[in-house]
């Protein structure tokens, strides 16, 4: 079962080709960790590659804050940009679709088709808006597990996620240890720092203080809090980049105006115009309530909370092998946060590998095909692949 097709005219090397998203409807209620039942829900997803006969080659991709189901390939020939992780998923790429069946879904609470704040609440007939129940990472694990059952998969060959996606992958390893063979945690952390939470709060405040927000019921008012959402994204975006990366990309170059004394008129730095553009583009494609919901889920995540705040005790529940990757210039989820994961795994007697990739792209590096990153990722997935071959 696959939605992937790659006609000859589109056979770009390494691309999964043209992909079509699908929707799955779940009628049974999903009990969320906040105690609320989601009476029914839709999940939008894409798949790449073929599921093998014994269903042992399935890889789940968990998306980060603003990600969704479209991780690889293009939706049409005219599509300007491929999916958000196209650098890592495709024939010959680290997650090699010649060998793996890849499932990428838009999490519930999202705004790209899966049930979320923009969906209609069947109880009221109106969009959920701000009343959409609070979500935790584990809720996504539960909903992903329903998808797993739908495909008849008993165990993931690997669960792979960057950032917030890495948190979902780790949560999987603790909640359903028998259903995961490998857990790849990229640019992630066991919990957010106070500084992380502070940035998220600034972003949320930017959204909620927009006069068009209307307490989250902006759809009913036929408006959108674009300014607030753009501002939130600008703050977020700064934290995804590194100082060196920004310096290299923009320096202090001007887009408009003149900094000489005596000159009049507005001055605009390149970096200002770049951020504004990023913010506006985002505000046109993302939902403000989803942004609030997802940043809250990030803030709430604490891997070891239920294990007496002892990550070693937590990881003793896991049975899979782990691969942890960090990037040197990532100050949002710094290498030190990843080393905490690694140390806890070692202390818990779990098989773990770790690579710290030299990169000046900040947190965003996990989306960029940095040669050493791709090599290490590829080598690890090679091991996952060989295990499948040995087993069959």
């Amino acid at each position: 079962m696959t939605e992937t097709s790659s006609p000859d005219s589109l056979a770009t090397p390494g691309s999964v080709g043209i992909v079509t998203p699908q929707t799955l409807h779940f009628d049974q209620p999903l009990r969320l960790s906040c105690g609320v039942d989601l009476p029914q829900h839709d999940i939008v997803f894409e798949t790449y590659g073929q599921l093998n006969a014994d269903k042992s080659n399935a890889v789940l991709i968990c998306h980060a804050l603003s990600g969704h189901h479209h991780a690889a390939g293009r939706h049409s020939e005219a599509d300007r940009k491929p999916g958000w992780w196209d650098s890592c998923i495709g024939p010959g790429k680290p997650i090699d679709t010649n060998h793996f069946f890849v499932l990428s879904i838009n999490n519930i609470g999202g705004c790209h088709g899966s049930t979320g704040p923009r969906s209609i609440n069947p109880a009221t007939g109106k969009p959920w808006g701000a009343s959409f129940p609070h979500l935790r990472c584990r809720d996504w694990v539960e909903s992903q597990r329903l998808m797993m059952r739908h495909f008849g998969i008993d165990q993931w060959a690997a669960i792979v996620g960057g950032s917030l996606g890495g948190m979902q992958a780790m949560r999987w390893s603790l909640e359903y240890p028998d259903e995961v063979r490998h857990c790849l945690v990229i640019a992630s952390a066991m919990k957010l720092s106070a500084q992380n939470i502070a940035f998220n709060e600034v972003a949320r405040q930017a959204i909620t203080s927009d006069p068009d927000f209307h307490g989250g019921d902006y759809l009913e008012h036929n408006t959108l809090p674009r300014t607030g959402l753009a501002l939130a994204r600008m703050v977020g975006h700064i934290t995804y980049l590194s100082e060196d990366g920004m310096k290299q990309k923009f320096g202090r170059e001007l887009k408009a105006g003149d900094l000489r004394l005596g000159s009049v008129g507005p001055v605009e730095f390149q970096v200002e115009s770049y951020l504004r553009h990023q913010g506006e583009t985002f505000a046109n494609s993302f939902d403000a309530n989803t942004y609030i919901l997802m940043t809250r889920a990030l803030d709430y995540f604490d891997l070891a909370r239920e294990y007496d705040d002892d990550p070693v005790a937590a990881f003793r529940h896991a049975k899979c092998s782990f691969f942890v990757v960090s990037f040197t210039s990532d100050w949002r989820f710094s290498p030190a946060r990843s080393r905490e994961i690694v140390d806890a795994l070692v202390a818990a007697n779990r098989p773990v590998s770790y690579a710290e990739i030299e990169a000046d792209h900040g947190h965003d590096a996990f989306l960029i095909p940095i040669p050493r990153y791709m090599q290490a990722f590829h080598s690890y997935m090679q091991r996952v692949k060989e295990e499948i071959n040995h087993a069959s």
Partner: protein
Amino acid sequence: MRHDLTLIQPWIQQGARVLDLGCGDGTLLAALRDQRGAFGIGLEIDHDNINQALARGVNVIEHDLNTGLANFRDNSFDMVVMTMALQTLRYPHLVIDEMLRVGRECVVTFPNFGYWRSRWYLGTKGKMPVSKFLPYTWYDTPNIHFCTVRDFDQLCEDKGIRILNSRYIDASNSQGALCARMPNLLSVTAVYHISK
């Protein structure tokens, strides 16, 4: 496989937990996994080595040994191994202390700088020895703390480290009887099995 790595294997018990400091491309850990069912984790700093170890299915953690082993718990491994890396460390004696804290037993192998050819090279040429075995020039070498068999024995005595076993490999890559009698002069590589 390198002779020192082959020598080590019988000292590792079936199913042991092994930490390999400077695990290189993971050759030893892969062999211990396949032949002795060991659970191994390697620490390595060289990117190519890390990649090769990953491809071998060896658990490898990017880690600079010069930053110590503070993140590893006391006695958390049955065996801590360090092959041919002692001479590259900034404070080798502190790393040995750490190895003995983290592991119940340890294995250290190192090139013996007391080997007669090194002495002869330095004595006759007055220059730092360069050989096929240690091909670096003095300025670009990763080796900054060469020692001899006698130096290492001295270190163990000073620190009260127990030498459970030692083996000496000569130039013909075997353990000759003469080499065993005069290891400081005749061994190229020394292999020590130690504990607290």
